[in-house]
């Protein structure tokens, strides 16, 4: 999972993930254009994402078509769940505290 955190720590890679999420399958060229980056630079980012298990690709002629694999992101969400639950408990106590205070 540290690979996932590394992968999503970079804003360019987050943009790539968002585009794959919203637009489905994309080639390196498709991904490079709006980023105004070289194909080589984008390929490096794609390699990081692939190592983290966040995308898969298939060959279409000479092109590689990339697709998002969301499972590692779901694992991150699961990992964060206990922290989120702690906040739910605290916020619920805050609500109780303020309500008790209002009624006195």
């Amino acid at each position, binding site marked *: *999972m*540290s690979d*996932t*955190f*590394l992968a*999503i*720590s970079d804003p360019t890679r*987050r943009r790539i993930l968002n585009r794959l999420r919203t637009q489905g399958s994309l080639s390196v060229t498709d991904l490079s254009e709006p980023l105004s980056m070289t194909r080589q630079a984008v390929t490096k980012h794609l390699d990081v994402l692939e190592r983290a298990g966040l995308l898969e690709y298939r060959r279409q002629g000479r092109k590689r078509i990339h697709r998002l694999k969301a499972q590692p*992101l779901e*694992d*991150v*969400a*699961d*990992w*964060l769940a*206990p*922290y*989120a639950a*702690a*906040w*739910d408990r*605290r*916020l619920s*106590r*805050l*609500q*109780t*505290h*303020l*309500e008790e*205070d*209002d009624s006195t």
Partner: protein
Amino acid sequence: MSGVITRALEFSSDIERVWKALTDPSEIAKWFSDRAEFDPTPGSLGWLEWDEHGRYPLRVEAVEPPHRISWSWSHNPGHEFDPENSTLVEWTLSEREEGGTLLELRESGFRTDAAYQENQRGWTAELGELAELLEGRSIPGSKPAPR
């Protein structure tokens, strides 16, 4: 986005009252920790302390009364504040048109890299459970082959 926790909650109390609950140490000790040292001034160091878990150091980052306050806290109780091993907690308060206050919470900066895991020894019981959960999760499919 992943790696971030966000929550939003509405209160019937007015914004000044909610602000006080978030920034006055004696108030914080009524709903968050057992004790708190907290000065809502950017850069000030404080802590949140639980009988059960120990003392968590924090640093106040940004303050805009009564609308925004943020602080970083380290996840190594009993140690100095360590920005390398901390998450950022941001609170945003806004007045609702129909009265009351909308409170938004965002905690970001969670990491699981090696340095962070070394610090895990110091984590609380609650986070110990988390580590067990992680280990339990990593077993399927990654069981070491018998030698």
